């Protein structure tokens, strides 16, 4: 008999089969993922999910008998009070005494349920999305790493020998094993010399010589540095957050923005955040809200606190520019900005905002997206808003600006896809 431990064999033997299955069911899975992400809170998305898909594309048909029809005999255990000739009303479903028996592989025509891992879920979620100019800046998938000291190791390359630690170990070992110090031996030798020169007691000379021999042997036996003393500096490779991005969320919070509009904007921001999080190791988010004046706030305030005032878009742009120049060096950060607004702006500010955007903001940004949110049932799309008309003048050029209108929640995802799709964005 052999006992073999297979536990350490490579895991994930069925991974290839799983990928084939996902590919096979791709169409249904993508649809299920889209439905799931449309219905639920965006924040929950990052956790993977249980997905149910219709069995259609992944059914494994085979010839087998129909559930009903014909004459069938069953032999079953546990007779209580039936006698020969008893008639029993047909149970619902017509199974005839074994109605609960499922089909051979334990599934009926119901949906097929299984768990998608977080990565699989998001991969499908972001399917064929590509950020423009992705290769720009330090946006490499392979993050750079740098060594960081992390204690000592018994093994290592000679160049990383930790001399002090090694010597300390050596010293304590030498003390513990009572290795004679060189000066002790020297002293003894001198004494022997003295005794010899003095030509005194030969007995004492013998003792001293014996002592010397003992010390010498001992110092030869116990090495000065033993391999067990040797220590090396240990380094751990720590990824450097060079692939980092900052996302500016700009939102108009003046009275004309309804809860519905804010909700739309929030969803867009979150999707963008999720997306950036996937591309960059480190993502910072800056929330700037504005009325006729702009302020950097935290997330709670950004979405939930109300404020009144006029609407001057350029204030937000100025604030953003200030923060970017103070905290986010263009060489080290990928800057993304998303602005949400209902399109209102003080007319006199339009030209100012336009200039700011064109000259100062857009050159900083990898991408600047403008989302115009509208009320759910209002037919406001016939007429272009102030801000829309202003920004449209820039969208025609090759600047990294994208603009979209969104009216209800289910439109967010398509708009998002549009904005970052591989095809060139059109205003």
């Amino acid at each position, binding site marked *: *008999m052999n006992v073999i431990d297979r536990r350490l064999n490579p895991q994930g033997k069925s991974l290839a089969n799983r990928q084939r299955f996902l590919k096979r069911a791709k169409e249904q899975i993508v649809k299920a993922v889209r439905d799931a992400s449309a219905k639920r809170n965006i924040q929950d998305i990052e956790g993977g999910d249980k997905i149910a898909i219709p069995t259609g594309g992944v059914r494994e*048909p*085979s010839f087998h008998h129909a559930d009903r029809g014909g004459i069938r005999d069953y*032999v079953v255990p546990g007779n209580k009070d039936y006698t020969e000739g008893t008639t029993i009303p*047909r149970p619902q479903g017509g199974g005839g005494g074994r109605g609960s028996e499922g089909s051979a592989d334990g599934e009926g025509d119901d949906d097929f349920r299984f768990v998608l891992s977080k990565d699989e879920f998001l991969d499908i979620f972001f399917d064929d999305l590509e950020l423009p100019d992705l290769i720009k800046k330090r946006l490499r998938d392979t993050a750079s790493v740098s060594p960081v000291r992390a204690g000592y190791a018994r093994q290592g390359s000679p160049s990383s020998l930790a001399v002090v630690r090694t010597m300390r170990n050596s010293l304590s070992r030498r003390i513990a094993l009572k290795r004679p110090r060189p000066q002790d031996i020297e002293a003894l030798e001198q004494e022997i010399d003295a005794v010899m020169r003095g030509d005194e007691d030969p007995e004492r000379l013998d003792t001293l010589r014996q002592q010397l021999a003992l010390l010498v042997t001992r110092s030869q036996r116990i090495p000065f540095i033993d391999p067990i003393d040797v220590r090396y500096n240990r380094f751990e490779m720590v990824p450097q957050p060079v692939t980092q991005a900052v996302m500016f969320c700009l939102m108009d919070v003046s009275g004309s923005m309804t809860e519905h509009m804010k909700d739309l904007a929030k969803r867009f921001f979150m999707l963008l955040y999720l997306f950036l999080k996937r591309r960059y190791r480190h993502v910072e988010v800056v929330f700037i809200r504005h009325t006729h004046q702009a302020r950097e706030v935290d997330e709670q305030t950004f979405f939930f606190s109300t404020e009144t005032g006029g609407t001057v878009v350029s204030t937000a742009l100025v604030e953003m520019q200030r923060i970017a120049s103070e905290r986010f060096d263009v060489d080290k950060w990928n800057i993304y900005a998303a602005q949400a607004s209902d399109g209102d702006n003080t007319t006199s500010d339009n030209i100012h905002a336009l200039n700011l955007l064109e000259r100062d903001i857009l050159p900083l940004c990898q991408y600047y997206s403008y989302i115009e949110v509208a009320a759910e049932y209002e037919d406001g799309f016939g007429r272009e808003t102030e801000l829309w008309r202003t920004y449209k003048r820039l969208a025609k050029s090759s600047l990294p600006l994208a603009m979209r209108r969104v009216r209800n929640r289910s439109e967010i995802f398509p708009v998002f896809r549009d904005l970052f799709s591989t095809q060139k964005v059109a205003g």
Partner: protein
Amino acid sequence: MADTLTANEPLYTGADWDFDKIKRVYDAIEQIAVGEMKLEIYRNQIEVITAEQMLDAYSSIGMPLMYKHWSFGKHFARDELLYRKGLRGLAYEIVINSSPCISYIMEENTMTMQTLVLAHAAFGHNHFFKNNHLFQQWTDARGILDYLDFAKSYVSSCEERYGFAAVERVLDAAHALMNHGVHRYPRKRPLDLRDELKRDRERQAYEEQIYNDLWRTVPRKDEKGTLAAVALADRKKLLALPEENILYFLEKRSPKLQPWQREILRIVRKISQYFYPQKQTKLMNEGCATFVHYKILNRMHEKGQIEDGHFLEFLHSHTGVVFQPDFDDPRFSGINPYALGFAMMQDIERIATDPTDEDRAWFPDIAGNGEPMATLRTAWSQYRDESFVLQFLSPALIRKLKLFKVKNDAAESHLLVEAIHDDRGYKQIRSALARQYDLAYTEPDIQVVDVNLAGDRKLILQHNVINGIPLDESNCKQVMRLIANLWGYEVKLIEVDARTGATLREHSDIAPTAPV
């Protein structure tokens, strides 16, 4: 028995297992199984695996290596979900009919469970695999792992050469026909898969070289100048019809398949054939293994090799395994093969050692012969589920389980109890239960009966309907489409009453949509 009771120390204490304990326990079991029970086994190979690896093995129909296909991934996904949600436990073990006999045991098992599993799989199933005539006749335990290795690399080399999609289409269709890829009647010599593989390749090459009327493209004219329809008898002779092994027929006769596609059909067919004995002996196989582990563990306890506490743990899981809910219990889902198999084997033991007059009347051959193990060994080697029930189900057991027979006639408004556990009913119940284990009744009998050679090459299948039970409609359509894709031309299915020969229904012809 008192003389064999020696003051043995327990072989292990505590719940944790390690490799030394397993070796000790294995040796003790071997002593009992081989020495006292006279079991014959293949050399054992025990492999310890994790839960994830167990799921892996599940999804590839229990085999340690398998070619790649999405359906295995699908099963894995579902099993994983059920397991993670705690809806379903995993089997404690999987055992493979190979030589050496490989048993997978899970690392989570306690030492007592490992003992149970070793006795159950490494000795019970192992003995059954080695001795049952179906396995001897149909499977090549020595060659199966090599064959699967070949199958795996062959399929992946096809994928490289012809693309995933093309291979997947063939496999999809072949899987749908897996139950119809079995030769039911044995040939003269046991199969050696490797030799046969070589021989059949040569034969295939030869057949492709020679003339085959099916591939004729020029219409033949007889003397009068009309198109001659080849007579049905001739067609049957030409194509070796009727043929119930549909996969075999397609592999050999389909006009459009490439050689590699035929080889893939062949692989699926071989694997299906390999599992055919297991489908026919589930009751006996599990019954045998359960009986063996029960005997061995009791004996070990008797010898003092297992402590009382551990023995209780064993009894607890054994009782769970052989639990049979009544028909009106919500947990009822058919007859538990472990329960019935175990009960029948215990019953045989009782009949052999301590028979009643009734038993003597019903089983004159074995009643009171005093050799329960020899009787059981004979039964294990010479029967399959259906014949085993028909031969050995005793009135005593029918009474104990309170079996009764119900007739469900779709034409009637009520179900009818036809037989219960009384003198009039025993034989009826016995034969009806035996039939429940007969694949000829539980799987539809579908055969290739004709091919239209002169015209559109339509393939004609016939379902021999027994007791008026029809085929499942939607599945039927899909499978026919897959057959059409393999065949390359239209497929027709006729359902014919097996007794009267009357045509019950004709399914509409299905044309190939995406020929492989």
